[in-house]
Structure formats: structure tokens, C-alpha cells
């Protein structure tokens, strides 16, 4: 059975697109047929991070509006053959997204793919709402700072109320995972940024992984390579492990400094 996973956050610039690219590439590298969709209409950049911006002919909006077939718009990754990208439009605005249209595209993708990863725009408006609406699971991307945590908390509330699963009203809920990104041990230990514990205490959802703040992320996105493919970098490793946990593997969460006694158990206990 296929799964739709939304990568969301509320706040912009926290690493959603980076994470959507890394997670979808990571799932595909393990052999799962995976498609990643850009819901950030008007601010196309998933295709850049995936290194396929020059191959975009038709996009998500064209498909929704019936101007192109889904097959024409999907771009197959040249490095990982189980990975496809559905880019968005640079020229339209988010009003071009309709609930019906999104549902139709997702239903069609579900027939072919194991995982469909939706890269959400920032905010809680239409684009972000439609990106999460049909999701089965959510990866909530959060930076260790107060405003990001609060926005994530808000988004968690919406995931629990304004989504297809929540509206069924039978008590079922979207499985939400926390991905803490741009984490800097030193700044967290000095109190300049929030600690992992503080973030978990507020958001109260299982931790999928901690991605360190790292220069390699920027370099990787500049050359259009999802950072997860760089298995030597700390960020790449962290994403690889996060993908493992997403698939239900028990992988200990690593942190280099600043952890307290008993934190291991706590983190493990919270992992899916």
C-alpha cells in the first residue's frame, strides 16, 4: 500500500525542501518507488535541489488543469531509477491548486509509487493545507528555536483537525514525526538555541532524527544533489538514519555533545 508523507513546518527556511529531497532520495535508494511533489507553487525550488530544473517541461499545475498527462510531467531521476519528481509551476499562484485536482493526482500516483512525498510551502494557507490534506504521515521539520517550534506546534494542531484523516472523525490520526534540522550542538549547549529535550517536551511527538547544521547541505543543493547521497557527511548520515527510522527501524539517535544522562532512553522511547 502506498503512503503519502507531507514534509511541513509552518515556518519558512527551516529545511523542508532540503528534507523532502533527502527523504525521498533516501527512500528511493532503498528500492522503494518514490515520487516527490513540489507544492510550493510560484517558488519552484525542489527541482533545483533535485538537480532537474533544466528538464522541467510540464508541471503539477498543468496536470491539475488537464493541460498535461501525469506521465508527461513526472521527471525520472537520472541517478536513482526508483525516484521521480513532480515539479511545480514557477508562474502560477497557489490558487491554481484545488482539492479535487490534488486528490486526483495523488490517487493516480498511489497506483504507481510506494511513497509520495509532498514538499509543503511555508505558512498555513491553501498550499500548505492541500499539501497535508491527503497525507497518511507527516514529517514536521523544526529548527531548535522558539518561533519555529511554535509554528510546528500550530501545524500539528492542523494535522489533527484539518486533514482528510482527521475529518473522518473515527479517531484515526496522521502519524507525525519530528525532524529537528539545522541543529548546532554548541549553540544548543550554550543555551543560545533550544535543547532537544525542550523541543520534544513542547511538541510531544516521536523524534525521527536530528540533522546537524552543516555546510555540506548548501554545497549539495548548489550542485543539485540530495544531501542524503553524500554518505560521508554528517548531515547525509543523519538523513539516512532518519529514513531508516521512518521505515520502522530502531536506530539510536546520535548527538555529539550536550546530552544528559537518561536522554538516550528518552529519545529511543519516543522513536517510532
Amino acid at each position, binding site marked *: 500500500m502506498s503512503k503519502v508523507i507531507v514534509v511541513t513546518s509552518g515556518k519558512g527556511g527551516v529545511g523542508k525542501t532540503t528534507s523532502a529531497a533527502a527523504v525521498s532520495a533516501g527512500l528511493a535508494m532503498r528500492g522503494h518507488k518514490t515520487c516527490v511533489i513540489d507544492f510550493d507553487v510560484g517558488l519552484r525550488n525542489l527541482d533545483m535541489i533535485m538537480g532537474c530544473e533544466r528538464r522541467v517541461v510540464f508541471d503539477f499545475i498543468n496536470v491539475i488543469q488537464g493541460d498535461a498527462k501525469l506521465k508527461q510531467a513526472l521527471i525520472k531521476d537520472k541517478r536513482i531509477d526508483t525516484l521521480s519528481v513532480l515539479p511545480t509551476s514557477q508562474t502560477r499562484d497557489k490558487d491554481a491548486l484545488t482539492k479535487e485536482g490534488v486528490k486526483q493526482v495523488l490517487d493516480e500516483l498511489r497506483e504507481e509509487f510506494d511513497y509520495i512525498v509532498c514538499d509543503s510551502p511555508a505558512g498555513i494557507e491553501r498550499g500548505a493545507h492541500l499539501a497535508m490534506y491527503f497525507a497518511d504521515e507527516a514529517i514536521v521539520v523544526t529548527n531548535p528555536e522558539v518561533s519555529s517550534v511554535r509554528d510546528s*506546534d*500550530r501545524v*500539528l*494542531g492542523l494535522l489533527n483537525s484539518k486533514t482528510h484523516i482527521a475529518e473522518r472523525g473515527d479517531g484515526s490520526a496522521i502519524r507525525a514525526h519530528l525532524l529537528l534540522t539545522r541543529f548546532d550542538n554548541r549553540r544548543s549547549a550554550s543555551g543560545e538555541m533550544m535543547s532537544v529535550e525542550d523541543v520534544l517536551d*513542547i511538541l510531544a511527538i516521536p523524534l525521527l532524527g536530528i540533522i546537524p547544521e552543516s555546510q555540506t547541505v548548501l554545497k549539495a543543493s548548489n550542485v543539485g544533489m540530495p544531501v542524503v547521497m553524500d554518505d560521508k557527511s554528517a548531515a547525509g548520515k543523519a538523513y539516512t538514519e532518519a529514513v531508516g527510522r521512518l521505515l520502522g527501524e530502531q536506530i539510536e539517535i546520535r548527538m555529539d555533545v550536550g546530552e544528559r544522562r537518561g536522554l538516550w532512553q528518552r529519545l529511543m522511547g519516543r522513536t517510532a
Partner: protein
Amino acid sequence: MQSQQVQQNPAKRVTTLKPFEIRGRFFTAVAVHLTGPADAAFYQALDTQIGQTPQFFDSAPIVLDLQNAAGFGSSEEMGLLVAQMRSRNLLVFGIQHGTDQQMQAARGAGLIPMSGGKDKPLDRQRPPRAQAETPAQKAPEPASRLITEPVRSGQTIFADRGDLVVVGPVSSGAELIASGNIHVYGTLRGRAMAGVNGDHNARIFCHSLDAELLAIAGLYRTSDDLPADMRKKNVQAYLQDDVLRIEAIG
């Protein structure tokens, strides 16, 4: 099997399914005591009351009490009064403590003569709408609300008929509102407003206090004036002489 029997024997079905059941029922009504004739001054006072507390009479069944309104009560006056009250959306249905003549007139105006019953001060601004059925029949529907999920920023949880119990954290930017008490088994970082219908006896309890605002019956304190030594403590908040007090428990 069963449906076959029903088809063969339709008369039986009618006798096994009773067309109605009779149950006792207690409920609360608002008694409006008239102290004189229903003149212009009366209607003006009534309109002022409705204007000040629009929810006061909302959906509340009303009984007219004529104990102190001896002079009043021709059939004409009674009919006018009932029409006037109904035109204000006041659900008047009964009459009590009238003279024989008054009761007669009231009956003519479609009111039901009531006997028995006791007056009680309304300690909430709004009469409780929950109506307890006779215990022998069915337990009353719980008026409290239980939330077992974290309450997130931007969410408002409302318990309009009683207590609100939250098992889990309440985020900053979230809002809890209850006509009764509020209990939070977790960290309260958002806003909590208890006794919002005016119940001064309502309290707020939380396992770890880090709230943005606490309010009881409209009296509030913000995070700035919550005592610093109560932060992250297991506390209760209550009103004492119109002061919102916070003290550690446990």
C-alpha cells in the same frame, strides 16, 4: 430469522415496539418574579437586562412568578405580557404563585400552572441546560470534557457545560475555556479561563504552570504577574475576595 417473523406476524411487532415511553424528568427553569404591573418601566428594565447579558435567558425555560404582583393579571394583560416576552425570544411557559383569577388568565394565555418547585439563586450567569433524567432511567450525559491529546498553538478547547480535563501539554498560543474547572495533567503554557459563565468557585489546576494567562470568572492574571516561585510547579488557582490566588499543591 427475526425479520421473517415480523413479516409473518406484523401485529406482534407493533405490540413489542412501544410507540412511546414515559420517563420522569427534572430540569431547571428561570423564575421571573413580577413586582408590579407589566408596564413600560417593566419592559424597559427587561430590555436593559437582555441587553447587558444577552446569553442570560438564551434557551432557558421561564416561569412567571406572581407572588408579589397582586394587582396585575386580567386576561388581556396576561396575553400581552406573554406575547411581549415571546417576541423577545424569552421562552415563557409556566406560571406560579398566582391568585385563582391570575392562574385562570394565565391558562387562557397558554401558560401552564406550576406547583411545587423551589427557587434557588442562579450562581452562573446562564442557567444550566443539562437536564438530569431520573437516575433510575439513565445517568445524565457527562457535562465535562476530556482531552487526551496535546492542545496545540492556535487551538481553542471549550467545555461549555462543565469541567475541562486535559491529559497532556497545552502549548503557548492554545486556549482552554470552561464554564467549570480546568484540570491540566501536563504543562500549561497557553491560556486557561475557568468559570467563564461567572462561576466564582471554579478553579484551575495544572501539573506544571507556565501559562500565558489564567482567568476565573473574568478575573485574570497574565504570565507577567504570575508569582515567579510558582513557575513549573503543580498549582491550583482560585478566587478569594475577588483576587486570583495561586498556590502550590501536592
